[in-house]
């Protein structure tokens, strides 16, 4: 038993068992939230795919063609996703994991260590794809009343399909780490991945796919499908996977493509093992080298912060946070993605052609203004969970410096608040003002949205900073882990509830009442005016209360740390 590679995976299994046995406070809630969200997403995916496949049944040959094409493209998307994910994951599993120091000092044969690390990479980079494919393939199978053989084929297809890009990704990493130190390679990969994602998002958006929906562009639709059948795809595992599944869906079998999948998968694993044998130790040794620091001289930053009217301690914290942020590629590179998404978001309003509906455009525009406000607030909460929520946890093992210094925990947390609030406010107000202007809503709504987003940002940033202090993860390896933790998910749930209550519970009624009266030229009664004022005041009060109470709870939680 101890000589087989799964033995090396035992600590993970034992640790999971121990964690399950020794339940901690909040574990059940955490499982409930994560499980519930996961289940809801799976059900939604299942329902959409089932409905689509069901609809395509009406189109006989065209329907078959589209299902076949859809499967092939679905797998093609996942092929690139798993390959990129495997490159990043294998950097951790093969080179940066802490337990490697123990395993490499032990007499573990190279092949055994490779297999255990490969299995771990396979699990970590492929689980999300498998979790997504499960409801999709199940829905397609049930909608098409597929035979049992389809489900067996699905299993026999997905396993080698995930193995191929994982093995290819691992080889790329082995080569990369021999060229760059592992930590630098991770930075480069993260940056490349983000730039790639930004380019794809921007490109897709500026192609304006909504044009395909208009009748005039019907020739474009046929051209669109023609381009999907690229000559390259039949040589890719995604095509083989799609073909195998499609054959099984119709009650047949496609041993050629299934065989191609398995032989390629095994060949890739053998290739990866050979590359490991040749390149691993040299790459591992290189991974131990320290990386060079960037942005080591940020004198302008210190000069700028010195001019701010802040206490000395807050200034020191601000300079430290800014420097850490700039030197961590994974942090600031995500800003690029954010900027791109914001541009796409605003661009959507530019191309939105609501004037095609002359009688309804006013109503739709005003209704859309509220959806836009809720969306902007949701973007704000997503930014806050990524950048503000982990602010306390990011102190990590260095938190003792703050705790032993003469800086109160209240000042510390408020400093984190302001560091997050100012830049996020610029983003949220910018987004809201530009989008409502492009939407062409009444000046009253434009002003209301602008004021509302200032208050909502206050609430969301306060909530993020406070809850981040209440649920710190000082041992987390990176901030993404903190944002995805139980506290992060709980923050998102509360943030969404707050947005719904504020926008649709407290702002929609008074604003639409005001617009209705203005449109019909009827003056507002004093009672209505009072009620409307109360609603606006309640929204403002709720925002201030959410922010202040969260911050207070956060400070108390920090004080309780002992």
């Amino acid at each position, binding site marked *: 038993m*101890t000589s087989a590679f799964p033995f090396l995976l035992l600590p993970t299994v034992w*640790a999971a068992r121990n964690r399950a046995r020794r339940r901690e406070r909040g574990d059940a809630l955490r499982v409930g939230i994560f499980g519930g969200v996961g289940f809801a997403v799976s059900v939604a995916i299942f329902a959409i795919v089932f409905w689509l496949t069901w609809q395509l049944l009406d189109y006989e040959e065209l329907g078959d063609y589209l299902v076949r094409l859809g499967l092939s493209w679905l797998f093609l998307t996942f092929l690139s996703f798993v390959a990129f994910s495997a490159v990043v994951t294998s950097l951790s599993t093969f080179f940066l994991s802490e337990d490697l120091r123990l395993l490499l000092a032990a*007499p573990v044969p190279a092949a055994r260590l490779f297999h255990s690390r490969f299995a771990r990479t396979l699990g970590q980079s492929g689980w999300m794809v498998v979790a997504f494919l499960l409801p999709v393939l199940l829905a397609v199978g049930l909608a098409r009343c597929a035979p049992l053989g389809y489900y067996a084929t699905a299993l026999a297809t997905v396993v080698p399909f995930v193995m191929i890009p994982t093995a290819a990704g691992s080889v790329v990493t082995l080569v990369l780490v021999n060229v760059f130190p592992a930590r630098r390679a991770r930075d480069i990969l993260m940056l490349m991945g983000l730039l790639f994602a930004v380019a794809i998002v921007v490109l897709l958006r500026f192609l304006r796919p909504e044009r395909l929906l208009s009748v005039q562009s019907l020739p474009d639709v046929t051209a669109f499908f023609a381009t999907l059948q690229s000559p390259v795809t039949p040589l890719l595992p995604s095509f083989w996977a799609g073909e195998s599944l499609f054959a099984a869906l119709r009650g047949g079998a496609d041993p050629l493509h299934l065989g191609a999948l398995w032989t390629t998968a095994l060949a890739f694993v053998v290739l990866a093992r050979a590359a490991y044998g040749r390149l691993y130790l040299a790459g591992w*040794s290189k991974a131990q080298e320290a990386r060079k620091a960037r942005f080591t001289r940020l004198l302008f930053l210190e000069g700028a912060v010195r001019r701010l009217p802040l206490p000395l301690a807050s200034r020191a914290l601000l300079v430290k946070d800014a420097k850490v942020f700039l030197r961590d590629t994974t942090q600031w590179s995500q800003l690029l993605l954010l900027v791109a998404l914001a541009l796409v978001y605003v661009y959507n309003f530019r191309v939105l052609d609501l004037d095609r509906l002359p009688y309804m455009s006013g109503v739709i525009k005003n209704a859309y203004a509220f959806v836009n406000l809720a969306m902007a607030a949701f973007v704000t909460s997503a930014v806050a969970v990524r950048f503000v929520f982990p602010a306390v946890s990011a102190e990590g093992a260095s938190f003792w410096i703050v705790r032993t210094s003469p800086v109160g925990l209240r000042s510390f947390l408020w400093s984190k608040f302001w560091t997050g609030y100012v830049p996020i406010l610029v983003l949220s107000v910018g987004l809201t003002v530009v989008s409502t202007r492009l939407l062409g809503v009444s000046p009253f709504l434009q002003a209301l949205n602008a004021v509302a987003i200032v208050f909502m940002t206050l609430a969301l940033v306060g909530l993020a900073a406070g809850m981040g202090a209440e649920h710190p993860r000082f041992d987390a390896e990176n901030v993404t882990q903190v944002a995805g933790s139980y506290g992060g998910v709980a923050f998102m749930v509360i943030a969404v509830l707050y947005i719904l209550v504020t926008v649709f519970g407290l702002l929609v009624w008074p604003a639409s009442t005001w617009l209705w009266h203005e449109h019909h030229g009827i003056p507002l009664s004093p009672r209505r005016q009072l009620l409307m004022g109360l609603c606006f005041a309640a929204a403002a009060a709720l925002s201030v209360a959410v922010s202040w109470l969260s911050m207070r709870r956060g400070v108390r939680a920090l004080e309780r740390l002992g």
Partner: protein
Amino acid sequence: MIRVDGLVKEFGGFRAVDDVSLEVPPGEIHGFLGPNGAGKTTTIRMIAGLLQPTRGRVEIAGHDLQREPEAAKRSLGFIPDRPFLYEKLTAAEYLRFHGGLFGFDGEPARERARELFELFELTRWKDELVESFSHGMKQRLVMCAAFLHRPRAVVVDEPMVGLDPRGARLIKDIFRIQSGKGVAILMSTHTLEVAQEMCDRISIILRGRIIARGTVDDLRRLADSEDAGLTPVFLKLTGGSAYQEIDL
């Protein structure tokens, strides 16, 4: 038992270890001293198989580390300065896993683990998660793991850090017993009193090169020093003043 021959390690253009050779015969406790950044840990990590040398050769119990890495590592117990422990495992599970890595399992492994838990005074906590252990307890658990498979050579980096006087005494006794049984021990330390008390021979490394080797008396002669303690000898040989070694 531990033989290092012409070991070189370069990080980019920087040579961290420069032509280091040393030999620790069975039963010897060999001290490995040097100021911070001298190349001690890099050398030790190469001996443990955690770093690939740029040049040179390491042999453990007659096995070449490059050519027969598994046989060499099977003969070695390694106690690093910053040991990795699976925090969510119990001490007993950790030892069971560690034993498995060295191909040592079943009843003999369990019996040996019981013995070591007793010896290192961890029996009461063997079923507790490692995350709840103090630094000293973790250090003792790492020692248990290092001695579990009855190694013929032990390499240890800073063994006394974080141990209370009782723990330190225990470790010293165990090292002496093990060396009495013929185990070769290479020990890197900054605690010169420990080196003076325990080591049969000492090598001093400075800027990646071995600058002195011998018994404490040999080193005293080499430094032309009359002092009884090792500290003045060390400072004289490494060219540092006392203030460089003391954080003020």
